[in-house]
């Protein structure tokens, strides 16, 4: 360290610049409102001399005699070059393109976007706040090239998925690292591990950030851009810079935002209206499906007999039955901030509140969030102290999804077309109670579920940082930063003891006897401590050179603790407390801890503001890898060349900007915790796949036992390595009226760390190992056009396009080149298969003849091909976004379309509506007997060998029709994989900045009223009559791409917001 310091000092001494002998002063203001700009950079052109503006926008700088021009720049404004005079006043225009913006890049370094050799997309805070979503990410869906943002579920407060440049890691996280003011933010999502039975999603960590607090965000995409952030940045980095206090012209700066929002159901399955309650073509009184005869308007009794009476219904469809169930959701939100600054100090304090009640009736799906932030800084001499403290509280209620009795949507989807759901609302009516509910088959009254099941989550979050900067020797800054992020989550689940409540009822024996209620309470604690020490050197050398270098040290520790307890057989049927049972609660605990240490460095050399070269490297030591492979190094290099600097002035009237960039970088990624050793676990065995399992300790014999774990640990694990190369071209024409940014990337993730399944005959079901290689290649385009700019009227259009080609390059041959990502046991599953894109579905399909005819069995049903076939991939073929803004004198109208094309997802909603005969497709041929279209039957010889085919002439009867659709129709299991293409009208915002002269004489300084709508419409391919294809029941990462398992429907949102500044 000592040697480095002295070397750097030697450089400073050699590079002494000439003494200045001219003083220039002036003022920098914003062209739009004439307000002073604080902290704008004033730099002598062709020299290193410069300063920045003070709190009144004033500056004074002493420059050499030969300096004739000053360059004035400020974050978010177009820089200007002005001639030197004794006093200059400069009005900067707000930047309207990406080219002129200043972006925050790795480790908080501010760079002009044009200098970057890597992909970094800046987003201004007002864009994030504009859509008025609950969290910072949702508002960006469809707006950023190369970034796939999805709502994993439409329920309020649920997690968002952000995937940058495709999925690269089979097992690690593919979500980006969020860094708030230099400190990593824990982004773990809280969702059900059992999406099949009882799914829920209480959101991801990044939702704790109040969108109104965000000054700007930067999305760093390539490995060369993210490497300094270490292992966790392999999937990209989202840098969030929060608002700081600024000097106010009078008093305290106050900003208030208040809004109301309404939500309505967006997408429900299309249902048939021809057939009602029944099975195999007959009326039944207790079936949960619509396989009865055709509707005829007759009066039909249904359900059980209670007190000598039975329900009666008209045998007619209730067309809006499902839609009528859902209510209008309502959200109100308030946010207020106070800020100010003196010459030496700044402060910013904000409070926010959101109460969101979704589209499910009552308050069964709600999201409440409160945030409090306090930030401040103080400069004393060469020292600057700053701190940021943030508290966030959230509470969610979620109606569970999946196939268990507590799943509301599962019950709704299994309601015959002629039974009114809204009429089930009165829970005092015995027929609407689970005891006399019309069917015993695993479903019950949805109103009963939302009223009596409990599924609540509360989280308290505290995160923030302390930072100390020390500037010394003119060109050096030392920074120490301590970051802390800690949260405690409490999940509270309860289901009623229906066995006790409904003993003796008709459903008791078949459905309720064993539903003895459950209380489950769990507490999760997470803590992350991140410490950084950094030394920065920044100097203009001679006239043409600028050097910026950093050397840093990073230490990080993360801990996780979980304690959960569950008890069944509730004494008081609906009191959800662990003490409420004569049985002994079952308790479980788990915890983990991981650390890493790292040293990193980077150096950027700039020549004549035209060529920029950056070199960087980082070495990590991680606790999760075997001792011998613990240390790993990864370098990066990037180059950008502003070729427009070489153009003649008249050429620059046409091409005003042109940049070529290239970058190469690596990121290493460590393993998950505890993958190096095999373990013994408390023994359990279940061979049927249902039930809670009966396991040790067996109290009757007083014996406990441990079984060798089924996953084989590995002492040979080495870090996963991602290598990425990218090229980019960025050009602007006609004073930025037209600009584009194009990028190509090639990302290879090698030596993936994975638990690979093995034939259990080996004694293990999986082994941990480094395996295979995944490649993502892609192109990204961003085009901005301003076709009209007349007077105060402006029309902007932007278009972004992303195409990613993913491919599994290599998986070990001895393991068949296949790895399971997620799947239904033995059913449709998602795999990584060598030579295929990452995430292909295999499903059972019919046996086909060579000329494409379906082979049917003797019953006329399609014969299953015993080998599952690859039927498609989870990946979009391309993604596109269209945005347009019309603005005129403070009024603006913005609209964004989000387009995704291609890919499949599993839909249980489709599966169950086929099973129940509710799906519109099941009314095919009016349910008259039919022969499977385009099908044949086998001709067999005496030995059962196939000798040929003959036309299938066996029609399906009423029983066969059910069997046919239940199996998926002519496509069999392939049918339940739905095309996930869509076009969504993501948002429309009409905003009006009231003329400031209206408030000239009062304390208000600005008022903005906006009307907004989010997810207003979704268009899907004709084959998808079932779901909003963004749905996921399996979290927000790779497995989430599997699909939905009776996920609650999505909603459209619209509302208005008032912003008042004082």
């Amino acid at each position: 360290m000592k040697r480095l310091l002295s070397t750097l000092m030697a450089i400073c001494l050699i590079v002494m610049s000439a003494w200045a002998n001219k003083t220039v002063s002036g003022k920098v203001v914003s062209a739009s409102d004439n307000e002073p700009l604080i902290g704008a950079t004033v730099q002598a052109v062709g020299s290193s001399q410069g300063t920045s503006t003070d709190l009144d926008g004033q500056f004074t700088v002493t420059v050499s005699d030969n300096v004739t021009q000053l360059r004035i720049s400020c974050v978010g404004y177009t820089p200007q070059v002005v001639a030197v005079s004794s006093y200059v006043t400069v009005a900067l225009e707000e930047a309207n393109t990406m080219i002129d913006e200043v972006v925050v890049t790795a480790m908080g370094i501010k760079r002009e976007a044009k200098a970057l050799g890597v992909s970094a997309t800046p987003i201004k805070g007002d864009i994030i706040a504009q859509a008025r979503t609950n969290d910072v990410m949702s508002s960006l869906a469809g707006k950023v090239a190369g970034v796939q943002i999805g709502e994993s579920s439409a329920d309020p407060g649920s997690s968002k998925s952000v995937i940058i440049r495709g999925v690269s890691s089979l097992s690690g996280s593919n979500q980006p690292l969020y860094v708030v003011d230099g400190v990593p933010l824990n982004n773990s999502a809280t969702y059900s591990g059992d999406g099949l039975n009882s799914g829920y999603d209480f959101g991801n960590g990044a939702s704790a950030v109040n969108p109104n607090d965000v000054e700007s965000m930067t999305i760093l995409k390539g490995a060369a851009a993210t490497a300094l952030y270490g292992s966790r940045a392999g999937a990209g980095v989202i840098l969030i810079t929060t608002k700081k206090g600024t000097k106010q012209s009078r008093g305290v700066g106050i900003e208030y935002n208040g809004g109301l929002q309404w939500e309505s159901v967006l997408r429900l399955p299309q249902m048939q209206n021809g057939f009602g309650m029944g099975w195999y073509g007959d009326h039944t009184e207790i079936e949960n499906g619509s396989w009865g005869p055709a509707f005829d308007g007759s009066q039909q009794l249904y359900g059980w007999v209670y007190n000598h009476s039975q329900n009666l219904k008209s045998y007619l469809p209730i067309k809006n039955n499902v839609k009528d169930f859902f209510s209008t959701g309502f959200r109100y939100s308030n946010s207020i901030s106070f800020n100010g600054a003196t010459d030496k100090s700044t402060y910013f304090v904000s409070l926010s509140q959101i109460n969101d009640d979704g589209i499910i009736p009552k308050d069964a799906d709600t999201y409440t969030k409160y945030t409090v932030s306090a930030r401040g800084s103080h400069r004393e001499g060469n020292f600057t102290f700053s701190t940021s403290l943030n508290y966030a509280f959230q509470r969610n209620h979620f109606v569970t999804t999946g196939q268990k009795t507590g799943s509301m949507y599962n019950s709704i989807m299994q309601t015959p077309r002629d039974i009114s759901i809204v009429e089930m609302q009165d829970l005092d009516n015995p027929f609407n109670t689970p005891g006399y509910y019309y069917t015993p088959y695993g479903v019950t009254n949805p109103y009963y579920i939302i009223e009596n099941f409990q599924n609540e989550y509360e989280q308290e979050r505290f995160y923030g940082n302390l930072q100390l900067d020390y500037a010394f020797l003119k060109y050096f800054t030392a920074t120490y930063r301590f970051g802390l992020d800690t949260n405690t989550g409490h999940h509270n689940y309860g289901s009623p003891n229906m066995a006790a409540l409904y003993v003796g009822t008709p459903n008791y024996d078949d459905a309720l006897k064993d539903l003895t209620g459950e209380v489950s309470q769990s507490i999760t604690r997470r803590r992350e401590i991140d410490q950084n020490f950094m030394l920065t050197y920044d100097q203009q050398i001679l006239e043409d050179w600028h050097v910026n270098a950093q050397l840093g040290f990073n230490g990080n520790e993360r801990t996780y603790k979980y304690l959960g307890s569950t008890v069944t057989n509730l004494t008081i049927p609906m009191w959800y407390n662990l003490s409420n049972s004569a049985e002994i609660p079952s308790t479980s605990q788990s915890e983990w801890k991981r650390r890493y240490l790292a040293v990193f460095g980077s150096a950027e050399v700039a020549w004549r503001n035209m060529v920029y070269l950056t070199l960087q490297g980082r070495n990590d030591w991680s606790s999760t890898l075997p001792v011998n492979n613990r240390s790993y190094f990864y370098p990066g290099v990037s180059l950008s060349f502003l070729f427009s600097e070489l153009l003649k002035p008249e050429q620059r009237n046409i091409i005003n900007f042109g940049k070529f960039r290239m970058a190469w970088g690596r990121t290493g990624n460590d393993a998950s915790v505890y993958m190096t050793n095999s373990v013994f676990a408390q023994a359990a065995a279940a061979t049927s796949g249902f039930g809670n399992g009966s396991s040790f300790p067996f109290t009757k014999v007083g014996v406990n036992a441990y079984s060798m774990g089924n996953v084989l640990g590995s002492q040979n694990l080495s870090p996963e390595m991602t290598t990425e190369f990218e090229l980019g071209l960025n050009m602007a024409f006609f004073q930025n009226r037209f600009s584009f940014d194009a990028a190509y990337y090639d990302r290879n993730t090698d030596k993936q760390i994975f638990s690979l399944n093995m034939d259990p005959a080996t004694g293990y079901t999986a082994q941990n190992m480094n395996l295979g290689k995944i490649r993502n290649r892609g192109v990204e385009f961003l085009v901005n056009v301003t076709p009209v700019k007349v007077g105060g009227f402006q029309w902007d259009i932007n278009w972004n396009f992303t195409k990613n080609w993913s491919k599994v390059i290599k998986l070990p041959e001895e393991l068949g080149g296949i790895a399971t990502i997620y799947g239904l046991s033995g059913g449709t599953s998602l795999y990584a298969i060598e030579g295929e894109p990452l995430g292909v579905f295999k499903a059972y399909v019919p046996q086909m003849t060579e000329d494409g005819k379906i082979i049917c069995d003797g019953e006329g049903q399609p014969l299953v091909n015993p080998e599952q076939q690859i039927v498609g991939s989870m990946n979009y073929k391309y993604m596109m976004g269209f945005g347009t803004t019309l603005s005129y004198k403070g009024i603006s109208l913005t609209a964004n379309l989000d387009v995704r094309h291609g890919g499949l997802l599993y839909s249980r909603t489709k599966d169950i509506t086929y099973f129940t005969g509710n799906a519109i497709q099941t009314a095919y041929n009016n349910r008259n007997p039919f022969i499977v279209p385009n099908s044949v039957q086998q001709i067999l010889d005496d030995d059962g060998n196939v000798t040929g085919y003959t036309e299938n002439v066996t029609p399906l009867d009423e029983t066969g029709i059910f069997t046919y659709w239940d199996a998926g129709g002519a496509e069999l299991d392939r049918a339940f994989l739905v095309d996930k293409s869509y076009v969504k009208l993501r948002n429309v915002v009409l905003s009006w900045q009231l003329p400031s002269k209206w408030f000239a004489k009062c304390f208000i300084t600005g008022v903005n009223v906006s009307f907004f709508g989010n997810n207003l419409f979704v268009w899907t391919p004709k084959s998808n009559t079932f779901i909003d294809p963004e749905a996921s029941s399996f979290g927000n990462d790779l497995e989430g791409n599997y699909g939905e398992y009776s996920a609650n429907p999505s909603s459209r949102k619209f509302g208005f917001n008032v912003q008042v500044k004082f």
Partner: protein
Amino acid sequence: MKKIYLLLTFAVVLSLSSCNLDINDDPNYPSSSDVTPDLVFPAAENAVAAAVGDAMFNYSGFFAQYFEQRPEANQYNNEAELNIDESTNLFDRCYRTLYAGALADIKNVMDRVENKSDLFACTVLRAYAFQLLVDNLDQVPYTEALQGSANTNPAWDKGEDVYKGVLAEMDEAEAALDGEPMTLTDPLLNKSVSQWRGFANALRLRMYLRLIDGGINASEYQSKAVALAKAGEFFTGNVAWDVYSNADGQYNPWYDVARALGTKNHVASYPIVSYYQATNDPRMEYAIMKNDAGEYVGQIPGAKTVYKSWGVDWKNKDVSAIDYTPAVFAPIYMFTQSELQFLVAETQLRWGDKAAAKAAYEAGVQADFASRGMSVGTFLNGNRVNWDAQASDGDRLNMIYMQKWAALFYRDHMEAWSEVRRTDVPTTCAAPAKQVFENPTVYSAGQMIVPALNYIQAGGLCKRVPYPSTARQLNKNTPAAKLLSDRVFWDAK
């Protein structure tokens, strides 16, 4: 300058304060050295028991035609209609539990203990697990199994070789016994070496009979079987995994599944009801309930959805449901005394002492009544079940087989299904289901009935289970797919 160093030192010291990276031992599980073989052996016993008493008990209950799918529920349509292929994953969980659970744990114990009695018990349990695997799949990984990452594609050995292999293992381990007491915790047989020997002998007898009827070295195994039957060194009581109680997490696992599914799915099949009726068997009421009309009515196999075309509106209320009550915390029967006695009776009748055969036969019937807490009373006087009332030894053999089938109901369905396959008793009714339904005289009580809706293309009954799809996907040596009508090696008849 001093300040910088101060700052630097301050920061680095702070950062390094938690730089110990040796924290990757999982605190959620006991350390491997703390888990002694003593703690592992019961896990292996439990895994084997769960396989035979949960999934196998269930599907074999359909294959042995004790169970039928209840008309207005759908959980086990595939089992009742034999609509099963590799995609059904009928056997996957058993395969995983037996190999990655039981056999891997047994191997771990055997690698770590030296006590000969412990090793013998492990060997017997291992033989039992492989016998189950072969009886379901015929070919299974054996010689190359359980080698972890050293062999991720173990070869599949012929069923016959696996039988011979585990028989030889048992002989070797028994020969090595040196009188030391057993030390492993053993809830199955309470550390009784003589019980383990008795269990081993019973297993041998079971496997010899299969080898004989499979036509494999018949004369050699015949003399061995006769010697075993004569010596009579078998276990007493039942070999049963008796650890369950009436509490959540402690239920019998098969019952636990029925409970979790909520909806009742099992009704009694036509053959078992008709046979119990024909023999006036009081065991009828043990687990079979009367229908709404107060009668015992079995459902014709695979006919649930077909009744309609026969002109009957067939509903839950029409048929005898299976009573789950006796199963709530019932032990899992891994080898019943009753089955053992029937095997002895068969051996003695075919090749040995006929008086001993009669005694064993009656002991077999009595043992089963006793296990149900019932008295045999005058049952054995019945014409169809009385030893002396039978005309020929052929009839007696048939009666032994039939009573074994009657006795294994609600006890050990896997063995019931295997013995039906080996002995072809109960015989399969020649008439199709529809005729049985329309004209019961074509049917004799207890006969198997080819399911009315039967997905086996070749027709007939289920003779094996398909290979696990996990093996198909992950092991390239898995043999080509088989049909349900393909037989295991010992099912030669």
